[in-house]
């Protein structure tokens, strides 16, 4: 190497060396200087993304595993404002109003507002069904449709800023079936009414926020966010559909204001069907405000109280028998009037029925007889039995917003001795249909009341937890329960009731109750008609309760509620595979 070139090499080496030193110095100063924290935060910010994992909401099945509430994909449609061109907002608003049903002006307003706030992304609409998104993806007929798995909403260049993000939303395949007990989920993911609200925490699961590294070298396993628990209900969807159909048919036939029906397994408390009117297509729950006007209860079976009328006489009679004051054969002379507490009690037809046994009193539903029996029971005992039967308290059924009913007792202000007389035949107190069903279950279960329930099993983390029947105490003795069951069977048969179903022995009681008015009197022309019964008597498999409110064709439960009960039972025995008594007994003997 010529010596005269040495300085060139040295100066070049010095130059690059200095550059290297400068780079090192700068790197050092960046990492230790005042801005170091800011740079560190920035690098940290871009090194990962915050992702919220929403577990799918738990599903709801009927007792046979048919899906009643599931999840389906819907889309959030947003706008990437960074790629939005000047003419695009109008095209987007037009497309969304034409295909998705959004309001044209509202979309323009959202976009203008987002632009003025320098946002980079804004949600134009949400919960859009896949069918509508498909229309957007093939919006421009001259271009091939956008790929299904693409985030781009449309194949039209003017709609290039539209972003479609899929997510799950609640869906109800059976539409309005069992809507009164299922409830619904709104767009804020909250359950409203029924099972959806009662089990909100269990069904919804817990969303989890996680940081996902953007550097693929630092990829981590995503945590397994447990989904919401699924529920298996005690409802049988076939029985539910049948009960709803028959109830609707009878409401129309009797021109009633509304109807309620409950079918329960009396041994286990499992509710096989429960419905009331009106009902709601749960996929279109926004209609709730138009359907449930004037504070209509969402589920009358547990949420509305009413004066039960004669159906309540079973409680009075059970108390008297349990105390040993009467037997079914005890004779009573009905004079057609009974004065008690300053009021006169009369029978439903205003007539005297003469000599009657207690069975006859129940069979003919005599107010005078039951009021006198109640007076012999005495106020203290009577209200003790009323309380023991669960009236005035929630039954504990696992449905949201259960009403407790109204029972005024002697130690409360506003109670008068006359109340005892009217309460004995179901006036002056208010109960829910569910309470009535639970009370009657005591006659079937040797005096023990079973707590009604609607959830049969919970499926959580791959395991199924089956729930057991629970009992709510024993208001009457086993012997009294058997006596009452026999009396209600005999009275139904002797009355030749329209509730009877050929081939099956049934027990039950009608209830016709006048409706109290706002001024404290009773409307003589309008009634609540109800019927509660069970069968087959020798091996009870169902309790059926029906209630028609303000029927117009007849004011008597024996004319309108009893046939409704019979129609339901006639179909129920087929769906539950219950052979007629004669065949069943022969089969059991063999």
């Amino acid at each position, binding site marked *: 190497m010529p010596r005269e070139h040495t300085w060139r090499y040295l100066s070049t080496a010095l130059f690059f060396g200095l550059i290297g030193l400068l780079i090192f110095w700068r790197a050092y100063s960046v990492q230790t200087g005042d801005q170091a924290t800011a740079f560190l935060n920035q690098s940290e910010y871009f090194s990962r993304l915050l992702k919220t994992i929403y577990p799918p909401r738990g599903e709801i099945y009927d007792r046979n595993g048919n899906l009643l509430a599931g999840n389906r994909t819907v889309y959030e449609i947003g706008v990437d404002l960074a790629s939005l061109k000047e003419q695009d907002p109008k095209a987007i608003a037009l497309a969304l109003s034409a295909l998705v049903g959004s309001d044209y002006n509202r979309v323009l307003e959202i976009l203008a507002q987002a632009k003025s706030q320098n946002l980079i992304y804004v949600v134009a609409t949400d919960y859009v069904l896949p069918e509508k998104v498909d229309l957007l993806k093939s919006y421009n007929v001259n271009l091939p449709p956008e790929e299904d798995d693409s985030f781009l909403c449309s194949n039209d260049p003017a709609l290039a800023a539209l972003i479609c993000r899929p997510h*799950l939303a609640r869906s109800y395949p059976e539409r309005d079936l069992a809507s009164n007990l299922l409830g619904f989920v709104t767009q804020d993911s909250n359950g409203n009414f029924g099972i959806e609200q009662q089990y909100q925490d269990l069904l919804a699961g817990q969303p989890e926020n996680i940081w996902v590294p953007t550097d693929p070298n630092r990829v981590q*396993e995503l945590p397994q966010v447990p989904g919401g628990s699924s529920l298996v209900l005690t409802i049988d969807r076939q029985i539910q559909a049948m009960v709803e159909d028959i109830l609707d048919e009878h409401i129309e036939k009797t021109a009633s204001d509304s109807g309620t029906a409950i079918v329960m397994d009396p041994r286990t408390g499992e509710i096989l069907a429960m419905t009331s009117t009106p009902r709601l297509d749960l996929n279109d729950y926004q209609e709730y405000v138009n359907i449930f006007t004037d504070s209509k209860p969402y589920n009358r079976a547990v949420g509305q109280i009413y004066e039960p009328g004669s159906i309540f006489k079973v409680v009075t009679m059970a108390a008297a028998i349990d105390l040993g004051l009467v037997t079914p054969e005890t004779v009573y002379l009905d004079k057609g009037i009974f004065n008690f507490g300053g009021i006169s009690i009369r029978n439903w037809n205003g007539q005297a029925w003469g000599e009657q046994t207690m069975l006859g009193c129940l069979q003919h539903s005599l107010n005078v007889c039951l009021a006198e029996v109640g007076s012999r029971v005495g106020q203290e005992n009577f209200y003790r039995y009323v309380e023991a039967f669960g009236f005035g308290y929630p039954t504990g059924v696992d449905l949201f917003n259960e009403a407790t009913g109204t029972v005024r007792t002697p130690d409360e202000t506003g109670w008068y001795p006359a109340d005892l007389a009217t309460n004995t035949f179901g006036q002056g107190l208010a109960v829910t249909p569910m309470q009535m069903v639970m009370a009657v279950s005591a006659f079937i279960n040797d005096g023990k009341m079973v707590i009604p329930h609607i959830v049969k099993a919970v499926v959580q983390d791959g395991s199924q937890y089956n729930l057991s029947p629970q009992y709510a105490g024993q208001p009457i003795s086993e012997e009294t329960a058997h006596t009452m069951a026999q009396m209600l069977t005999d009275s139904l048969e002797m009355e030749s009731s329209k509730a009877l179903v050929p081939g099956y022995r049934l027990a039950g009681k009608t209830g016709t109750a006048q409706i109290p008015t706002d001024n404290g009197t009773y409307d003589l022309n309008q009634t609540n008609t109800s019927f509660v019964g069970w069968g087959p008597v020798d091996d009870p498999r169902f309790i059926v309760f029906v209630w028609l409110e303000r029927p117009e064709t007849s004011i008597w439960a024996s004319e309108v509620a009893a046939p409704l009960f019979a129609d339901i039972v006639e179909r129920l025995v087929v769906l539950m*595979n219950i052979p007629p008594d004669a065949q069943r007994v022969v089969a059991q003997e063999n």
Partner: protein
Amino acid sequence: MLKRSRELIQAYQQAPWRRQMQVIGFIAAGLVAVSLVGALYLNITARAATAGRQVQNLQSDVADLEQKIEDLKTELAFIASVESMQQRAADLGFKPLSPNALTYLSVPEYQGRPSGAQLAPRAGAQFSAAARLPAEYTQSLFDWLSQLLGVLGGF
């Protein structure tokens, strides 16, 4: 031997370019070694990054598939809903059965349809752990080395 050494020293003194070539040779060898390590590192890093990206894609696929499963379950339930099945039955000429039109047969020891759906094993059953990412995708080189040394140390 001594003579041979002297000859070599003399040769280098006579031709200093040989010494320079030797230095260049060492530097070149160092560069080649660094390049080899760098290439190996880049190769492994690139493969790890590709695998990581694949994992991310698969995680996304899992989420998509879970969503599709939910969709299909619900779609099937719509198709098999009571209303739909009743309509199909009616179209095929079926009518609801009345108790009078029904004949029951007694089948000895038949217990009837089991009551209640069993959607999952009863609580208390043991389950195998869910599939997890293999260690190759999550452990660093040092983790792997310490694991290896641990295994070797065990012998």
